[in-house]
């Protein structure tokens, strides 16, 4: 047989293979590349993305950077306002409080309580500080006991003496030691004699308190601390909580719980939803009917009521943090949205030309599902997932807020809100910071979701 080439001399010679050719179209971009470009243009969404990444970093790296133990209780620093390390006075070690009892005091059982005299004098004992205030007074004739009051504005009359600190039984017991929730500042203490009834007269002493800590506490922070020196305390940039624990460290710790539930619950239930929705949409028929009926049923369960029911049904045993029951409850109740979404998408895609073509070429079910159907629904699902995160975070916060969430000592942002809201007006930092973290996280995910939807929406893609 003759060689064609030789038989027919070529009119054309082949062009040498070259990599250089002119491209008349813009570079072909994959769906995801395109989406990424769009997302980058959306400043809000990009900022949110950074916030989300920042939160994850905050949670993971936080404990290594901010090396304060979240469970360390400093009872001398309860509910301290945010500070970058304040200086406090080192005080002599507290001596055990010895009550002053006078001898020879006579209680007259007949004396009229209301007309008893006020005490003649009140004397401060030792150095008053926020660690404690001690004082004694001269006994009142005929008194069978005394009531001690405390306030922070100078009392005008008998009605405005403030908090009743103690009711002392015995007219011979004439001293008091106060350690309740003292902050630096001025306090007014009043002593009222009583005999059955309280007297209408009272005596007031004012005390200026400085922030101070005892020598032994000081030495545990800095070994060479001396009495009378000022000592710089560790920074508490977000203040401390009701047991003197560092709020920042607690928030980092709490972020683990809140974000864990915020991320994993939606991730897991969306995966479950995809599976159920995918199977239902792809196979159709009886399977679809049944699965959709189950979906409708789960959707009809009153969500919060069942969250609470499941939460107590699965229960948390001793030492459990209560995260697992919450996770399970969330998954069981929340997969329906993703399932419906996936099913709808698959139903649409199943009939589309490229899937039909692939099927004609002999593609098997599994291949079709994983190669064509799922990747093409991923965009919509990703958007759905992004919006599911804030709602999971809200649910956790809400449950923890009504006391059905995580168990102590594990903190979550929701449970910290619950702890903080009671003292909101006095120590706002204990409530505001966890609430702020919840809000910022939810906000970031919402904006990111908006951005993703715009970026991934094929309709928008064709328009620009």
């Amino acid at each position: 047989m003759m060689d064609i080439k030789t038989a027919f001399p070529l009119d054309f010679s082949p062009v040498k293979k070259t990599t250089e050719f002119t491209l008349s179209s813009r570079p072909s971009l994959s769906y995801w590349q395109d989406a990424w470009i769009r997302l980058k243009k959306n400043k809000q969404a990009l900022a949110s993305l950074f916030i989300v990444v920042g939160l994850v970093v905050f949670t993971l790296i936080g404990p290594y950077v901010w090396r304060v133990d979240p469970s360390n209780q400093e009872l001398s620093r309860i509910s301290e306002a945010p500070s970058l390390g304040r200086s406090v006075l080192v005080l002599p070690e507290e001596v055990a409080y010895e009550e002053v009892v006078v001898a020879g005091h006579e209680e007259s059982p007949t004396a009229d309580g209301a007309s008893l005299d006020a005490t003649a004098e009140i004397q401060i004992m030792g150095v008053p500080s926020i660690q404690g205030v001690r004082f004694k007074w001269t006994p009142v004739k005929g008194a069978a006991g005394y009531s001690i009051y405390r306030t922070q504005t100078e009392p005008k009359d008998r009605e405005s003496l403030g908090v009743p600190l103690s009711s002392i039984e015995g007219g011979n017991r004439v001293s008091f030691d106060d350690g309740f929730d003292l902050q630096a500042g001025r306090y007014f203490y009043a002593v009222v004699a009583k005999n059955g009834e309280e007297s209408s007269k009272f005596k007031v002493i004012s005390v200026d308190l400085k922030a101070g800590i005892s020598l032994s506490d000081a030495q545990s922070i800095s070994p060479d601390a001396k009495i009378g020196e000022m000592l710089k305390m560790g920074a508490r940039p977000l203040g401390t909580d009701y047991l003197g624990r560092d709020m920042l460290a607690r928030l980092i710790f709490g972020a683990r719980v809140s974000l864990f539930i915020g991320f994993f619950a939606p991730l897991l239930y969306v995966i479950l939803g995809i599976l159920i929705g995918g199977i239902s949409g792809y196979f159709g028929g009886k399977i679809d009917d049944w699965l959709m009926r189950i979906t409708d049923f789960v959707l009809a369960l009153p969500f919060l009521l069942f969250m609470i029911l499941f939460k107590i049904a699965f229960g948390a045993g001793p030492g459990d943090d209560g995260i697992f029951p919450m996770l399970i409850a969330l998954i069981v109740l929340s997969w329906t949205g993703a399932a419906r979404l996936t099913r709808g998408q698959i139903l649409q895609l199943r009939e589309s030309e490229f899937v039909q073509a692939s099927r004609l070429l002999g593609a098997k079910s599994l291949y079709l599902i994983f190669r064509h159907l799922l990747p093409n629904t991923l965009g919509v699902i990703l958007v759905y997932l992004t919006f599911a995160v804030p709602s999971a975070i809200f649910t956790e916060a809400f449950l923890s807020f009504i006391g059905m969430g995580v168990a102590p000592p594990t903190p979550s942002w929701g449970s910290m809100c619950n702890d903080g809201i009671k003292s909101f007006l006095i120590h706002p930092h204990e409530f505001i910071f966890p609430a702020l973290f919840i809000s910022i996280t939810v906000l970031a995910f919402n904006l990111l979701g908006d951005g993703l939807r715009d970026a991934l929406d094929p309709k928008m893609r064709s328009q620009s």
Partner: protein
Amino acid sequence: MLSYVIKRLVAGLVTVFFIATATFLAMHLVPGDPISGAKAMSPEIRANIEARYGLDKPVAVQYVVFLTNMMKGDFGISFTQQNRSVNDIIAGHFPISATLGILAVLIAAMGGVLYGSIAALTRGKWEDRTVMFLVILGVSVPSFVFAALGQYVLTEINKRFDTEILPVGGWGTFSHMLLPALVLGLGTMAFLTRLMRSSLLEIVNQDYIRTAKAKGLPTRRIFFSHQLRNAILPVITFLGPAIAAITTGGFVVESVFAIPGLGRYFVQAVNQLDYTVIMGLTVFYGAFLVFMVILVDIIYGFVDPRISIAKGKA
């Protein structure tokens, strides 16, 4: 049409039956004991209480009894309020929760449509930005924060003006409902504003709007007779579930504002493990939710000419 409604109702009843079963199961999984009291009681008294509530029978029997009674519309007697039936509790307190919920949804819907429209019409301008900023705040702040702050601010205002602008709590008159309803509806309002805005914006590009514009119809007319009417549809679909969700989700607001709604009873019942009340309320709420959705679907059919119920969904 009628057959569609009947079909939906039957399906709804089946769902309620399943909800009842799920609730019953969940209740019997819960560890603990509804009969115990802070002070121990003698075993004989205990046995009598168990007998009264049928707890001495096997679980299967209890289930059958529960279902048959439920079909008769009887949820039994509360464990804690020993001479009140669950029906009494629902009849007494559901109207309150529902009133509050409907008012909240109304406020949310009106606010949502109004602010959504403003934002869409002023797209990109400062009005739009302000509204959207508030919306974002609304969806990002938990309701318990709004409730506590709302009440505190109101107390301060009342004190400042030394009169009662609005009551800080309790129940009875319309003025009692306003603040709690607003607090309750705020999140939904924010959501609806967004929904309204985006659906309006989507419609702007539709052909029929362009046609209308080309015809030279005044903007106002286009907005009210074309845009608004079509854009409001997704808002309506959302209302049914929203009423149900808000009505069932008012625990915190009801507690903060001292409102005798059903939500508070539920939380209380859970803490007391009041079986009958928990089961009764859950089934009732489930049924409420199911039929609310059906109702909205039917209304939707009337509002949206594109959907024909008879063929469309059945």
